């Protein structure tokens, strides 16, 4: 039952997307704008089709730096959130650093990272982490803190150590929040990776866009953007699918649709 309604949802979404693309195609046919301004979807697909290896190679690089940045954000973010919950002092220090970091424009910082780390994958991963980690830390810290006080009393009655409370009560309690943070972080990690590629290096979809733009190759820019959109969407739904597998017990998974209608 649930899986058939999910299949319906996917089919509906695809139908809407295909419809929009067809409208775009028709509009380009009808108004015939110069291809350098707006190419037709069919031209973009043809571009992808003509050099699949090229796009795959660069998409692969972007995917790897994105996933590395995302993975590091999750690991580091959870560790920082635990430290924040464990100590008031750590909470102050980490919150301040994160807020300062978050208010600096990453685009302006990117060149520094290139100076420090070179033009390989490292600066891209670093920028992805800078963008993605904030939502992980904020959401996980909230999840670790908002534990039912009675559950903590129960743990104390059973003489549980702080680590055991963290592992058995706080951490599972924070998992739904972790997934909320991860859904935001995965998109930010992708943006971070692209920002890094814009500034330096010779690989990745960001690099493809930069080069194609320099040559006024609008079709190629759109082709790269298309691949980027597909990667971002797939990554998001991958996180969501993982969430469904990991949290069958959570209310948000049990009663998800039509809630507002009831």
């Amino acid at each position, binding site marked *: 039952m649930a899986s058939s309604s999910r299949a319906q949802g996917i089919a509906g979404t695809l139908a809407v997307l295909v419809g929009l693309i067809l409208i775009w195609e028709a509009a380009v046919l009808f108004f015939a704008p110069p291809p350098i301004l707006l190419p037709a979807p069919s031209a973009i697909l043809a571009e992808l089709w003509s050099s699949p290896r090229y796009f795959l190679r660069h998409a692969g690089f972007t995917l790897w730096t994105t996933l590395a940045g995302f993975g590091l954000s999750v690991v580091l973010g959870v560790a920082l959130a635990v430290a924040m919950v464990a100590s008031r002092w750590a909470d102050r220090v980490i919150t301040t650093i994160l807020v300062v970091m978050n208010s600096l424009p990453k685009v302006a910082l990117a060149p520094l990272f290139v100076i420090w780390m070179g033009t390989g994958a490292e600066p891209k991963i670093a920028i992805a982490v800078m963008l993605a980690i904030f939502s992980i830390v904020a959401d996980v810290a909230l999840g670790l803190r908002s534990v*039912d006080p*009675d*559950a903590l*009393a*129960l*743990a*104390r*009655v*059973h*003489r*549980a*150590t702080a680590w*055991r*409370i963290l592992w*058995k*009560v706080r951490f*599972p309690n924070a*998992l739904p929040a972790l997934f909320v943070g991860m859904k935001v972080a995965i998109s930010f990690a992708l943006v971070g990776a692209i920002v890094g590629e814009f500034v330096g290096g010779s690989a990745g979809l960001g690099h493809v866009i930069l080069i194609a733009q320099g040559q006024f190759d609008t079709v190629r820019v759109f082709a790269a953007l298309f691949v980027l959109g597909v990667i971002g969407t797939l990554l998001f739904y991958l996180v969501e699918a993982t969430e469904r597998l990991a*949290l069958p*017990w*959570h*209310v948000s998974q*049990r009663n998800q649709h039509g809630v507002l209608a009831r």
Partner: protein
Amino acid sequence: MGLCIEVRDGGKTYASARGPVTALAHVGLEVREGEFLSLLGPSGCGKSTLLRAIAGLDPLTAGTITLRGAPITRPPERMGMVFQRDVLLDWRSIRDNVLLAAELQGLPRHAHEARAMALLERFGLGDFADRHPWELSGGMRQRAAICRALLCEPDILLMDEPFGALDAMTRDDLNLELSRIQQDGGRTVVFVTHSIAEAVYLSDRVAVMSTGPGRVVEVFDINLPRPRPLALRETPEFAVHVAAIRGLFSRLGIVKD
């Protein structure tokens, strides 16, 4: 019977945003080894506060609480607690929720699995061991919470209005089961309730508390024979105890005749 828990001149003042709140003042209470004692009183008289202090969760701000002569400064060993809400963890099956009591203490799970299942069977939850809390009714959930409290064979069981949120029929059911458990003997129970009938039915003694500030006013001996069938509540002997306690409440101005 020896003395298990003793509260002497206990007081508790909460510091709140609107100044200090005195929840308890000059509380004296003795809980004997192996007895079932109820704390009975109106809302806000400090029953939970007293119970949490006995549990070693929130210390008193005046007076002393001792367990077999030693001051209670943190939750003692071999103590179980049941709260008004069942506090089951949604991500654990019922079996795993019961086993949580052992896991939190760092005791090996496998050593307790058999007992967990036996307890669940006894409370009619055998077929629900692998279900999750949200798949159970309120009464079943509270039964699971009692199983969790009993898992590590506590010799002191503290219960804070465990049946307060249940309907009358489920409540009767659980009262009967609780009084059966008490028959196994060897366990000291401190039970918080609003209900005079429930207190009389379950207890060896009932400590009546009053507000303004919270204190123990009088302790009633309930010398009704055990085992106690539910029908005991319709007997004249039972009514005598209920009337005595109600009389005290009306003298205190807590209930009107």
